C-alpha cells in the first residue's frame, strides 16, 4: 500500500498541495472556480503554519485507525490493501471520526452533512497534491520505500500495536 508522507524539512509553505486537492475535489475541477462553488470544496490536506514552521497533515491511513473504531456507521473501513476508506453513502456526518482522528485529517462537508478525508485519489496515477508539491515534501510511496530512502525515522514500518 502506498500512502502520502509529509516531510516538513522540505516544505516551503507554498500550499500548492491544498490548492491541488481543492481543485481535484471540486465540482468544476477548476482551481479558480472552486472557491466560488457552493458548497465550497474543502482540501483533504490541511496546511498549517505555526510558530514559523509548516505542516501539512493528511490522513495517515493508520494501521489501527481511530476513525474506523469510532465510526458508528461502518462508513470508515479498511480496504483490502490497507487504505482507510470512507464510504460517503453510509456516512451520516456524526463527527465521531473527527472527534478521534489525531491528525485532524477528517473534514466536515457541512452542506452534505457528511465528512470526507483523503482517499489518495485512487483514480490518479499520482495524487494531485503530491504532483503539486515541487519541493518533494509530499512523498507518495510505500512505508518500506519511505524508510529505505532514508526519509523516515523507522516508525512507518514498525507495526507497533
Amino acid at each position: 500500500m502506498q500512502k502520502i508522507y509529509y516531510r516538513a524539512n522540505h516544505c516551503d509553505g507554498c500550499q500548492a498541495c491544498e490548492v491541488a486537492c481543492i481543485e481535484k475535489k471540486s465540482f468544476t475541477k477548476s482551481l479558480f472556480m472552486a472557491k466560488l462553488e457552493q458548497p465550497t470544496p474543502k482540501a483533504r490536506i490541511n496546511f498549517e503554519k505555526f510558530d514559523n514552521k509548516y505542516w501539512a497533515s493528511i490522513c495517515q491511513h493508520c494501521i489501527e485507525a481511530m476513525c474506523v473504531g469510532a465510526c458508528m456507521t461502518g462508513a470508515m473501513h479498511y480496504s483490502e490493501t490497507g487504505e482507510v476508506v470512507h464510504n460517503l453513502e453510509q456516512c451520516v456526518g456524526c463527527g465521531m471520526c473527527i472527534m478521534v482522528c489525531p491528525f485532524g485529517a477528517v473534514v466536515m462537508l457541512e452542506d452534505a452533512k457528511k465528512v470526507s478525508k483523503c482517499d489518495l485519489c485512487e483514480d490518479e496515477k499520482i495524487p494531485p497534491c503530491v504532483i503539486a508539491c515541487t519541493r518533494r515534501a509530499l512523498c507518495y510511496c510505500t512505508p518500506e520505500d519511505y524508510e529505505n530512502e532514508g526519509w523516515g525515522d523507522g516508525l512507518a514500518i514498525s507495526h507497533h500495536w
Partner: protein
Amino acid sequence: MGLYIRPRSLGIISKPLERDDDLRTSICCLCNGGCGLKVSLDHEGKVQAVFGDRDNPYNKGKICAKPMEIVQTLYGPYRVGHPLRRINGKFERITWEEALKLIAQRYNHYSQENGTGSIVGITSKIGGSYSKLAHSIFSKLTGMANYGTGPICMESELKVRKDIFGNGSASSPLSDVIKSKIMLIVGNNCAQTKAGQFHWISEAKQQGTKVVVIDTRFTETAQMADRFIQIRPGTDTVLGMALLKIIINNNLYDQAFVSEYTNGFEQLAEAVEAFTLKQAADITGVPRNVIEELAEDLAVRKPGMLFEGRGIVCVNNAGASIRAFEDLMAILGNIGKPGAGIISHINNYGNARDLIPKKDVIKPDRKRSATALYQAMEEGEIKMVFIAGNPCVNWPDSRRMTQAIQGLDFVVSHTLFLDDSAMLADIVLPATHWLEEAGVQASVHRVLQWKDQAAATYAESRSGGDLFRQLAKYMGLETSYFPNSPQKAWELERTHNKSIEGITVERLRKTPGGVHFPCPANGQEAERLYESSLFPTPSGRVELARKNNIAIEYINVFDSPGNQGVSPEKYPYLLSTNKVASHYHTICQYSNWAQEMEKQPYVEMHPQTASELGLTDGDPVRLETVTGSLVLPARITFSVPRGYFTTQPYFGLHSPYRQTPVNSLFPVAVDPVGGNFANKNIMCSASAEGRAGQ
C-alpha cells in the same frame, strides 16, 4: 509550481534617454493598439531605441515589449535589404528594376494564359495606409484576389458583428471603459496582447468598474480581474446562452431598446432555452451561482462593455459564442452609449469608393474560400502568389501550405525578413518597416493617428505603396490612379470615403491621440458608433437572430470543424495556441530581447496532465494531431485546465528559434458561422518523447 504570470511584460513605462538629439514621434503599428511611441535615432538616422510617448493621451507613455524589440530586428541579420532572385536554389541579388520587370512579365503571362484567378495575394502584412491603398488599387486593376488577416485572425468576429449591428468594427473606444460599470473580457488576454493600453482597464477597475474575465486559462488579465471565470475550452457559447437566458427570463433586459431597435428577440429567447442552467453549469464548468451572479451584475451594472479576444474568435465554434455575447450586450441596451458597447481591435473605417472608373476595374475570375485556396494551389489552378506575410507559419496545416507554395510556378514575397515563406519565393522584395513609412494607424480607441516616417529607409527597401505603383507601371497598367506619397494617399482616400472625409493629415498632425471616426466632411467626429441608434443593417435594426432564424446554435467543440470524426480515444486532449506579450506574429522573433523573454516555445499543461503522461517540467513532449506532430518542452502550470495544451504560435524554421511551425498541427478547418480558421481547441494526443539513453 508553474507560472501564472509573466510580470516582465506588463505595460512597461519607459523613459526616453536624456539629451536625445533626434527624438521622433510615431505610432506603433503592431497589435492595432495604437500606442504612441518616441523613437530615438542615432547620427545615421538609425533607430537606437523606442519608448512610450508620454504625450500620447491614449497610452500615456506605456508600451509593451514588442515595439522596444524592434530596434534589434530592424538592422539584424535576417532583414532583407535588396531584391533577391532565386537562381538554382540560391538567392542572388538583383536590382529593383530587374525584379519588377520579371514580376510584371510573369503576372501578365499567367493572367492572360490562366486567368486572373491564377494569381492570388496572401497579404496579411501589407504595410500602412499608403501601402494598403496602393494594394487595393492594384488589386482592383488586376483582379487579384487577396487573403488577408481575416481568416487567421478576425473573420468570425467581423462577420458576426456585421450581421448583428451592420458594422464589424468596434462600437466603442477602449477609453470608454472608464465610464463603464462592468467590463466583460472574454477569451482575451489583453494584459499581454494590448499591454500598452491595458492601463485603461486597470484604471477603470480602480475607479470601480467591475472587471470580469472569462477564459480557459488563468491569464495575466484574469489575474487582475475582480472576477475570473475559468470556463471549459470551447463552451463559451453555452455560458453566453445561460446569461441570456437568465436575463431574458427575469426581464432584466432593456425592453425599450429591444422592442424599438432589434429584430429576432423571440428567436433568441427560444434558442437560449436549449440548456437549463444546470446543464450550462455542467458543460461550462462554471458553477450555477457564478453564472447567476454574473447575469445579475450585467443587469445591474450599466453601462457595461464587452471585449472579446482570439480566445472566442479563433475557435472552431466561434460564430455562436460571439453572437451570444454580442446579443447579450445588445439586449442589455449596452450599445451606442458612453461606457457601453463592444471593444475590438477591428477598426475598419471603410473603403474608398469610386477611386477607379468602372471600366478599369477587373474582378477576379474565380472566387475561393480560404480553405479552397490550399487545393487550388495544389492542383495547379493557381500559378503565382504574391506574399506579404508569412503563411507558411501562420496559416493552418503549415506543412501543407508550405508544400503548396513550393509547388507553384512563381512566388513573390514582399517582406522584412527571410522568413519561412520568403525562403520559398522566386523573388524576394525588401519591404519598409512601419517606422520607415508615414501613414495613418487605427487604434483600439477608435481613433486614427498619423505617424510621419520616423527612421530612414533601410537599404533598398520599398513600401507597398511604391511597389504596387511601380509594378503597375511595368505591367502597363494605368498608374495615374496611384498616389505617390503617404500624404497624398490619405488625402485621396479620405475624399473617397465619407466616414473619414473630415480627417485631414493636417488635422491628424495637430491632434495628439488622433481623431475619432466616422468623421464626415463637417469635421464632427463620432467617439462611438450607434449613438443615434441607427444600425447599418438592411433592416436598420440590431439583428439578434441569424438569417435562418436560429439565433444561436452551440456546437460541441469535439464535433466542431477540425475535430469532426477524430477519434477521442486516439486524440483525447485539446491543443490551442495563445499569444504572449513579447511576440507579434513573425516579426519579433528576430529580437534578442524577445528571445530572452521567451527562450523557446513550450507547451503549457496542467500538473495532472503532466503526471498522466509521466512528464516533469521541461521534459520533451510530442504533440500529435491529425495533421502532424511536434516535440516541445513541457511547462507545468495550474493556469491551464486539465487535458488541455497550449503553446505559442509564432515560430518558424527560418528564424532564430528554428521551430517547426505549430500551426502545422492545426487542420484547415473553419468556424461554420464566422469563417475563421481555428487555432484553438483542436483534438490532439500527447506522449513523453524519449530522450537519448532512455
